[in-house]
């Protein structure tokens, strides 16, 4: 089915970035369904995925409203190609092992918890409403992922090795969390978006506290990956979308 093309304003682009990050992160977590190390964790990971999917749906609905062309959340999720997705790169990396998933979820939650807390004051009242729900949900995600990070880092030699490896791989993707381009500047200026610079100290404080408890160290900040916000992705996103979008592309409008 034909790919749709949106006429993006900075506001629409900004909301799409948030929606895409939530959706892609939710999809990666949902891949654990039936594969987690234990039943309770299987439930926990898909519950977190479900929260994020709910946030993505609300954000896509908001984006569709901003565009005003009568499109639906499904159009935005299923009918755009990889270069049109604006998610953070950290969200699209393959799920890896359990340690990788836990480190990624800790980093993302440590960022999005203060992010949504601040977004409650957004001049975009719909975004503020979504933020009011999301900040409570992400507080749970952070507590859960953080507790596992401590257990894995402070666990066996093997769990520690895998956690350190995941941390080293993922850290270069954290720069993007704080990236501000012209879209971001306009949104901060309009009071729609929180300024990531004010979120960084909260993020670093909670990451350092958890790493400290886990007996791990924050990797040295070096070269940082970038591109997701502009639609320049790793090769992994296209494969993920092929799986996620296959049904709607092959059978347009299918419902069941």
């Amino acid at each position: 089915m034909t790919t749709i093309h949106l006429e993006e304003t900075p506001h629409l682009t900004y909301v799409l970035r948030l929606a895409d990050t939530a959706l892609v992160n939710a999809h990666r977590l949902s891949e654990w369904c039936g594969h987690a190390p234990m039943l309770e964790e299987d439930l926990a990971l898909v519950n977190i995925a479900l929260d994020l999917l709910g946030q993505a749906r609300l954000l896509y609905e908001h984006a569709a409203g901003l565009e005003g062309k009568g499109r639906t959340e499904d159009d935005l999720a299923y009918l755009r190609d990889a270069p049109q997705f604006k998610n953070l790169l950290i969200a699209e990396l393959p799920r890896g092992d359990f340690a990788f998933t836990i480190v990624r979820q800790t980093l993302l939650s440590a960022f999005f918890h203060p992010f949504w807390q601040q977004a409650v004051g957004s001049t975009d009242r719909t975004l503020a409403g979504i933020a009011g729900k999301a900040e409570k949900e992400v507080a749970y995600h952070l507590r859960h992922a953080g507790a596992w990070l401590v257990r894995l880092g402070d666990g066996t030699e093997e769990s520690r090795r895998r956690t350190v490896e995941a941390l080293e791989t993922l850290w270069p993707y954290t720069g993007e969390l704080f990236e501000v381009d012209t879209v971001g500047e306009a949104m901060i200026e309009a009071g729609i978006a929180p300024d990531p610079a004010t979120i960084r100290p909260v993020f670093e404080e909670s990451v350092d506290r958890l790493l400290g408890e886990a007996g791990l160290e924050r990797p040295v900040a070096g070269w940082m990956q970038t591109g997701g916000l502009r639609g320049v992705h790793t090769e992994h996103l296209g494969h993920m979308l092929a799986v996620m979008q296959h049904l709607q592309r092959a059978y347009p409008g299918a419902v069941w």
Partner: protein
Amino acid sequence: MTTVALDRLERAIEAVSAVPDPEIPVVSIADLGMVRAVRLAVDGVVEVDLTPTYSGCPATRLIGEEVAAAVEAAGCGKPRVRFLLGPAWTTDWITPEGRKALERYGIAPPRPRGAPAEPVRCPHCGSEDTEEISAFGSTPCKALWRCRSCREPFDRFKCL
């Protein structure tokens, strides 16, 4: 408002309040604090404002459909059902009756937000010697707990 209109609004409120939660049918959506307003609009249509619990709760859409069906079945016409995101739902809106119904059903109710952490009582035997197994459970609103006295697992409503 005329007596007829008032009567119709009362019936609509009653019908909406009685809709059970699809996942936990012993509590109504009014007990859960999901019903924010029921009113008669100027065009005579019943308007219902609901608040979703969790962003991704799969029951949300079903609840909207059931509320619409209940209002129609009460002879109040087809209503307009809206979901309001703000203010965000909190477990503090669960009524005292709702809390009791949850406990009788085997789900430990949430404690009020900001209240000091106190032991969670086992809904089966009443013991306070309990522990959390997982912060996530069978639905988005519940966590998984276990009683160390009677050894039974139980659900606990998350505090949100």
